[in-house]
């Protein structure tokens, strides 16, 4: 409806507050009489804990308490939650170790929380944390994914006799192998999907207070929605009634998957506040955030396809090694199967597919969901295969893809692991990306760059994403007597602009101005009972449909009120352009809202007010997809890669606000650029984390790309009324394969067909140097 409704690039309502320093991030919140916490963290990757001496720390100035794992055990604090239950083909259940909040007998990764020191100032707590003495008995550690399952690898959990968690399989290995053997060509790739640190710009913070009289705990922390954290704290960890635990996130400085998790720090700080009867605040620094925030990716994939003589895939096998770290985090072990597994083999029709996953424990912090959560890994595998297939067949990179795309006439298309793709124009989207990037004119640009001594390459990636996960979510809409709308959401915006987009939807359905709408989110005291949060690119669908459903409920009740006021039956009232109409007479929504709060004007049998809560439920997710083209220049003397142009064409379905969706695409692309160019979490052979600051860990900066553009090929989703497809994670799927494709295209004269991420100058230079040396030999 008009200039503020669906599809308009409305400027964000959130911005003025955040641009003037009025945001409320957790560290901006101070509780009366608060004490400060500092964690003692493990300096060993694998060590037995023989004892702990708190006495020196307790004698330090200002120290109030030192809390260790023994204290939590004595108080009956529960273990962290993981409910995965994969089985191998013999029916054997996966190895499932328990994770104590603070370990009492063994520490299993560097940076693991061992104790919390509470003092009157942050500096006192920090100083005292340095003198809590743990008696460690170190033993050899394993950090490497490549070595984790080798026979001589140190064991993270000796009781299992292996670091393997489970050998999960899909499909018929023998059938696939027979087809590969009979194929015209076999194409194989072996790929490292590097471990990355999600790195929201706001380090993790927890502030907690306990009201002993009410028995009520309040925890302030950045999150992606507090309901699940509330449930775990109440039910599993601190054993409090759920309605006595409140999680509040005012502003959260980036989520990316890692802010949705329950961490030991959250539990321990909450426990301390309850134990001491005083508010306690802990602010993590960046090094702690690197050590203890869950990481992303960390897979090694060995994939092979068989092609017929026309270049069509007849079968595929994929072996995935996944490093989940020292414990089972909430979702880490699921990602190849339930994250990437939703879509793999992605945009391609693969008649026969065998998939083997071997998740393993190592002495590293856990991996878990990070922007894309399994789908960037899956798309990277497929796109590297398609580039290799182009080499093997002599077909162009676009033609080999075109021949294998799932076509619109094959949809709805069932994926191997049971999901159904409803829509997508993969060939059309690829064509747009090639046109928008002037793919056809590339060779002239390559020749021009050559004159400057630069090797120019162009790369292509087609990809698909699975968005809108766990599609059940509540929404409540309350309209007061002055027709001000308050939305109470279980989704929680931490940068995605829900306040703006939901207001646009209210404008669309109720005809009210954006400033009549207020979004309340990030507080379990006000979010609907059925709420899950914001992750997996789900809020456009589940939150957007929640607004639509509550608006419909408001209109339905409004018709009964309007019918009463207009002296006609509710069934004869229609709602159009903000007016309830019956025959020749009409009444505004504002008048109905006022009447709804006036007992004298309300019909008998209706509750006062306009206040509707609805749970939106969908059976299926949605499948955003896209094609991205990257153009790079490589300096062969230094190995430096410049990304000179990046064109993203995305099918995010119906675009509710193009300004915001573009922002999501750009952000995702830049995280993909980070993974492919500079980001890499490195543990050494002893399990020491070498990349625990922004000095050592390569965050992408503004100059890492010269210019980006994002365009849309809108194909509405058929499985939700809004037609939306989630936009948050697509960019991170496209950038890694598009850029590796471009760099290997630039280096094709050296015969370099693959370099593992990140494509640092050193790696690129070494590849070139190796090729030159080989050529000279």
């Amino acid at each position: 409806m008009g200039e503020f409704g669906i599809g308009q690039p409305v400027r964000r309502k959130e911005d003025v507050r955040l641009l003037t320093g009025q945001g409320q991030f957790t560290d901006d919140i101070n509780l009366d009489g608060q004490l400060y916490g500092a964690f003692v963290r493990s300096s060993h990757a694998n060590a037995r804990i023989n004892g702990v001496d708190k006495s020196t720390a307790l004698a330090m100035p200002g120290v109030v308490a030192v809390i260790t794992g023994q204290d939590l055990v004595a108080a009956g604090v529960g273990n962290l939650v993981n409910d995965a239950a994969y089985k191998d083909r013999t029916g054997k259940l996966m190895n499932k170790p328990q994770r104590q909040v603070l370990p009492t007998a063994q520490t299993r990764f560097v940076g693991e929380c061992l104790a919390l020191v509470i003092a009157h100032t942050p500096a006192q707590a920090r100083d005292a944390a340095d003198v809590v003495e743990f008696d460690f008995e170190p033993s050899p550690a394993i950090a490497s994914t490549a070595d984790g399952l080798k026979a001589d690898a140190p064991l993270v959990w000796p009781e299992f006799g292996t670091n393997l968690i489970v050998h999960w399989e899909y499909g018929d290995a023998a059938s696939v192998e027979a087809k590969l053997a009979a194929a015209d060509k076999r194409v194989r790739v072996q790929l490292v999907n590097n471990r990355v640190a999600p790195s929201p710009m706001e380090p993790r913070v927890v502030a907690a207070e306990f009201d002993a009289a009410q028995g009520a705990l309040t925890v302030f922390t950045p999150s992606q929605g507090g309901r699940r954290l509330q449930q775990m704290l109440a039910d599993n960890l601190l054993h409090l009634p759920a309605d006595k635990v409140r999680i509040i996130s005012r502003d959260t400085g980036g989520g990316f998957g890692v802010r949705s998790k329950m961490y030991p720090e959250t539990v321990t700080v909450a426990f301390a506040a309850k134990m001491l009867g005083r508010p306690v605040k802990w602010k993590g620094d960046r090094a702690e955030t690197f050590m203890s925030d869950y990481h992303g990716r960390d897979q090694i994939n060995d994939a092979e396809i068989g092609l017929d003589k026309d270049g069509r895939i007849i079968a595929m096998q994929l072996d995935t090694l996944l490093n989940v770290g020292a414990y089972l985090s909430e979702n880490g072990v699921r990602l190849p199967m339930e994250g990437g597994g939703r879509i793999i083999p992605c945009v391609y029709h693969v008649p026969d597919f065998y998939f083997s996953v071997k998740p393993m424990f190592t002495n590293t912090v856990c991996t878990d969901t990070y922007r894309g959560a399994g789908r960037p890994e899956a798309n990277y595998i497929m796109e590297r295969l398609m580039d290799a297939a182009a080499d093997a067949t002599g077909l162009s990179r676009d033609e080999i893809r075109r021949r294998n795309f799932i076509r619109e006439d094959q949809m709805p298309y069932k994926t191997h692991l049971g999901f159904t793709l409803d829509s997508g124009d993969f060939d059309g989207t690829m064509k747009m990306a090639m046109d928008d990037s002037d793919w056809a004119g590339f060779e002239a640009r390559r020749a021009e760059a050559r004159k400057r001594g630069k090797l120019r390459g162009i790369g292509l990636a087609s990809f698909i994403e699975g968005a809108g996960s766990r599609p059940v979510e509540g929404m409540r809409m309350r309209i007061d007597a002055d027709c001000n709308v308050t939305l109470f959401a279980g989704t929680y915006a931490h940068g995605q602009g829900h306040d703006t987009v939901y207001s646009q939807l209210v404008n669309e359905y109720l005809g009210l101005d954006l400033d009549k709408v207020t979004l309340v989110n990030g507080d379990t005291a006000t979010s609907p009972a059925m709420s899950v949060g914001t992750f997996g690119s789900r809020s456009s669908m589940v939150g957007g449909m929640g607004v639509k459903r509550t608006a419909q409920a408001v209109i339905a009740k409004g018709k009964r009120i309007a019918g009463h006021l207009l002296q006609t039956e509710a069934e004869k009232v229609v709602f159009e352009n903000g007016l309830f109409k019956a025959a020749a007479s009409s009444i505004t929504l504002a008048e109905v809202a006022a009447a709804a709060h006036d007992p004298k004007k309300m019909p008998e049998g209706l509750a006062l007010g306009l206040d509707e809560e609805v749970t939106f439920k969908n059976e299926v997710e949605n499948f955003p997809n896209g094609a991205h083209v990257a153009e790079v220049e490589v300096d062969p003397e230094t190995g430096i890669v410049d990304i000179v142009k990046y064109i993203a064409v995305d099918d995010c379905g119906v675009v509710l606000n193009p300004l915001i969706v573009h922002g999501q695409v750009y952000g995702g692309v830049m995280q993909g650029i980070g993974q492919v160019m500079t980001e890499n979490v490195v543990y050494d052979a002893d399990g020491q984390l070498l990349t625990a600051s922004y000095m050592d860990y390569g965050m992408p900066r503004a100059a890492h790309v010269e210019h980006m553009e994002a365009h849309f090929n809108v194909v509405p989703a058929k499985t939700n009324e809004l037609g939306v497809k989630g936009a948050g994670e697509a960019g991170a799927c496209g950038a890694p394969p598009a850029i590796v494709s471009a760099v290997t295209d630039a280096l094709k004269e050296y015969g370099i067909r693959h370099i593992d991420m990140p494509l640092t100058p050193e790696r690129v230079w070494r590849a070139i140097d190796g090729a030159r040396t080989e050529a000279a030999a």
Partner: protein
Amino acid sequence: MDIEVNMKVNGKPVSGKVEARTLLVQFIREHLRLTGTHVGCDTTQCGCCVVHVDGVAMKSCTMLAAQAEGCSITTIEGLAAEDGTLHPMQAAFREHHGLQCGFCTPGMVMMGVDIANRLPGADEKTVRHQLEGNICRCTGYQGIVEAIMDASTVMNASRS
């Protein structure tokens, strides 16, 4: 050891007794309770804490409060006009969707003003390189770069 510091912050004289090791950002956040200036790292990399010291962009995590003695500090809270009218840089960030979660934003805006002051009319490549010391994890920088270029034009026009 506590020391006394005196400076002007957002046009108003302020003073305080602080530990000698207190960083300027701690003084701003914890003593003055101006929490718009953020801390995102431990190593002077992220730029979330950028303020202006005597009109020049400075990472306030890398300066002691004592070093700002007698200086004039502007934080993000002091950028908009008294009546709430946004500074052209703030307005441009909104116009170009140069922020998402908002955590790096105050530092980005303060840095953007500094870039526009020093390099009026800077092109995309220059602006991108000038942002070397500011990290954003949400936006992919595209909206930030566009905002700084746009605001730079507006600010330049209003100067001439």
